């Protein structure tokens, strides 16, 4: 009952935030879309993984709920420019939750025999999941900020906002590289395609960082190409992970085990989320892309 009442309250709040108001700018939409994708990935991942952890600690309920609220707020940001302050506050909450989550996950790793061992890094609570919630929150804040910059329209403000989102994208890509690298290493890179994300993402990160660091230097197109590639990886990765599940013992008919045993189908879409944040950053720094 409580959960249902809470859900209704959140839905009503989000409805208010989304209703009316003018549609946001393109950059803001992209960033909000990215935040939404990341948050959606965290909803699926944390709900599944904390279920796998039998919700042993009450705090484990927080992550999927916080991610769901972030997702709803990101969707609201996508459709309406209203309620900037409230949205920023909610996204800030997501950032805080992500940071606490990281703390809990570190503790979870260290309390096992072996401490900071590969076994615990492979199989205990991952850094990536709370990290993604942190990113979603920051991207949401960035989306609100981009809307403000686009509304005001000065190049300085737009570049500033773009740099922030670009830095966030690069930071996210490096983080994901570490996470994917660790987990694909756990899978012994048994399929050569598993090397693809860990080699492509850092290059993409460098390219986007370069593009936003020196706006107008015509590196935007190159960075956009990389981001499109990352989008492609998200699609291909989801398909390959689904194939991975199907080739486990019992395939999808043994889904109660294999969806959890992995590879995680919900993980690769977060790549698309980060790419969208990157596109938002490029939109803000590319000359001639100002909204009318």
């Amino acid at each position, binding site marked *: 009952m409580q959960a249902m009442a809470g859900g209704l309250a959140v839905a009503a709040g989000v409805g208010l935030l989304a209703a009316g108001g003018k549609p946001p700018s393109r950059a803001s939409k992209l960033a909000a879309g990215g935040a939404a994708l990341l948050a959606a990935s965290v909803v699926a991942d944390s709900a599944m993984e904390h279920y796998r952890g039998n919700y042993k600690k009450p705090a484990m309920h927080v992550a999927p709920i916080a991610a769901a609220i972030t997702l709803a707020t990101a969707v609201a940001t996508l459709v309406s420019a209203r309620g900037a302050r409230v949205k920023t506050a909610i996204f800030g909450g997501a950032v805080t939750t992500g940071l606490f989550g990281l703390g809990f996950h570190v503790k979870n790793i260290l309390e096992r*025999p072996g401490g900071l061992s590969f076994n615990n890094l492979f*199989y205990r609570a991952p850094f990536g999941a709370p990290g993604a919630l942190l990113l979603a929150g920051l991207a949401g804040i960035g989306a609100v900020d981009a809307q403000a910059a686009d509304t005001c329209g000065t190049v300085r403000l737009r570049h500033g906002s773009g740099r922030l989102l670009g830095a966030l994208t690069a930071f996210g890509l490096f983080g994901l590289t570490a996470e994917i690298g660790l987990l694909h290493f756990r899978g012994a890179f*048994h399929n050569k395609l598993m090397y693809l994300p860990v080699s492509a993402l850092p290059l993409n990160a460098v390219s986007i960082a370069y593009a936003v660091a020196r706006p107008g230097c015509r590196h935007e197109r190159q960075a956009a190409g990389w981001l499109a590639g990352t989008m492609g990886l998200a699609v291909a990765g989801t398909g390959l992970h689904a194939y991975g599940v199907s080739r486990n*013992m019992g395939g999808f008919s043994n889904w109660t085990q294999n969806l959890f*045993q992995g590879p995680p189908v919900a993980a690769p879409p977060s790549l698309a989320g980060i790419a969208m944040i990157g596109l938002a950053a490029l939109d803000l720094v590319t000359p001639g892309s100002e909204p009318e």
Partner: protein
Amino acid sequence: MSAIASDAEFTLRATKGRAPNVFRRGEWVPMREYDENEPVDFAIVGTGCGGSVLAARLAEAGFSVVAFDAGAFYRPLEDFASDEAEQEKLYWLDERISGGNDPLEFGSNNSGKCVGGTTVHFQMVALRFRPEWFKSRTALGYGHDWPVDWREMWRYYAIAENDMKIAGPVRYPWGPKRGRYPYREHELSASALVLARGAEAMGVKWTTTPTASLSAPRGEAHPCVNRGFCKIGCATNAKQSMLVTYVPRALAAGAEIRDLAMVGRIETGPDGRATGVHYHRDGKWRFQKAKNVVASGYSIETPRLLLNSASEKHPDGLANSSGLVGKALMAHTNNAVWGIMNEEIRWYKGPPSLAVCEHWNYVDEGKDFDGGYSFMSQGPLPTDFATTLVENEGPFGADLRNWMAHYNHMAGLKIVGETMPNDDNRVELSDEKDRLGLPIPKVTFSLSDNDKRLAAHAEDFMSRMLEAAGGSNLFHTASTAHLMGGCRMGDDPATSVVDASGRSWDIDNLFVCDGSLFPTAGGVNPSMTIVANSLRIADRIIAMGKRGELSQSAAADGKRGA
């Protein structure tokens, strides 16, 4: 056990140009077949970690190979049930007479009967010998030296581990540096964490056990799903037994496997050299001609076969001029301590021995015995644990059921303890005959005082560790595991049966390649050492072939006789 599960125990499967595809239900792979009257380059007796490895490597090198196995050719996905009683079909249950002060148990304990051999029901623990053990007489003052340098073995361990995609820790905490294991370690189970916690409390190192079970997909084989029935046959194909590794490789390279084919005798000609093998298949005795014969039947069946092949030229059995065939049989002591944990362990999940401590293999101070031991976390299935409990402690009545109701709270630590090679521990032929008319083997085994001191040391250490990890109501059990020795290899024809290449000192076209070659037992599970040693022997045989030293070339005979 029965036709309820499958027809493999009654129906030849490797025949008519095809053999079972072990990765698919009901499917086949093509198999090359050889004429019985046309001498093949190698007739190999047994398809475990000796025979199948050799069959694969020799066939890949272009030799014609026929490998025989007395057991059935299974497809794990459709033939292996999740059931202890049914899976007894994997064991060598032909009678063996067991005597001595500490008679060995065979069957489930150490002897497999199916294509793939005992590895189909081994516990997948994939450890290496400590380097000094290859020179234990010179370096440590006990046992016999191996005719091999540890660095050579180290190279072959790496190949074996890669061939079997061993899942192990990134850094192994004992011994000289070894490369990273090809697959990553498995997630630790609750029972493994008991060992880990205990080791950290006692201040000794521990690690995830290198395990022959896939932690990621490989080809058509599925990764492990933690079903925990590993020891009685893996129905997932995650377990890298010989059945799903070297046997398919051997078939693909053109070797023939003959299932349900019991070799009873190696024939020797007037010149005393081997000419082929007599084997029983499909209801009658047959004969396969061969230029070279390899005995790979493990520590009981290999000596039994050599002894039963006595002829006028070899009255005491083949390769037995030293009188050592069947002697210096070794087992590992398998003493364990068990306790009840406060938390639920549910040790039936996951590979059963996921954490290991090799401390007492690598530390020599503070010991009142020669040799070493490792110990691992445990996860016995219900009847396995129940028999251990009643045979050692004898509870019965409601008390027995009550004890077994603690099954999900139990944890245990069990050693693989080195025993000393002793010529009185041996395999002989009895006067009794089995249903094929072959003499039943008689095995004598007694522990030495040193072996007992080792076991006592281990029990004391492990008890303290299990207590430190939170165990209560501790009890001890004693048993043995594994077989080693019986056809020792060495550098001297007077004190060994075969040379470093597994070639018999007496008969130049007769080889032995299996665990019976071990001069000493070491304090680790033997399978990886058998595989590595077989890979090494295969390379030596291939090199001999290139130099024209094998019996197929006329020049060979003269060279070696001297």
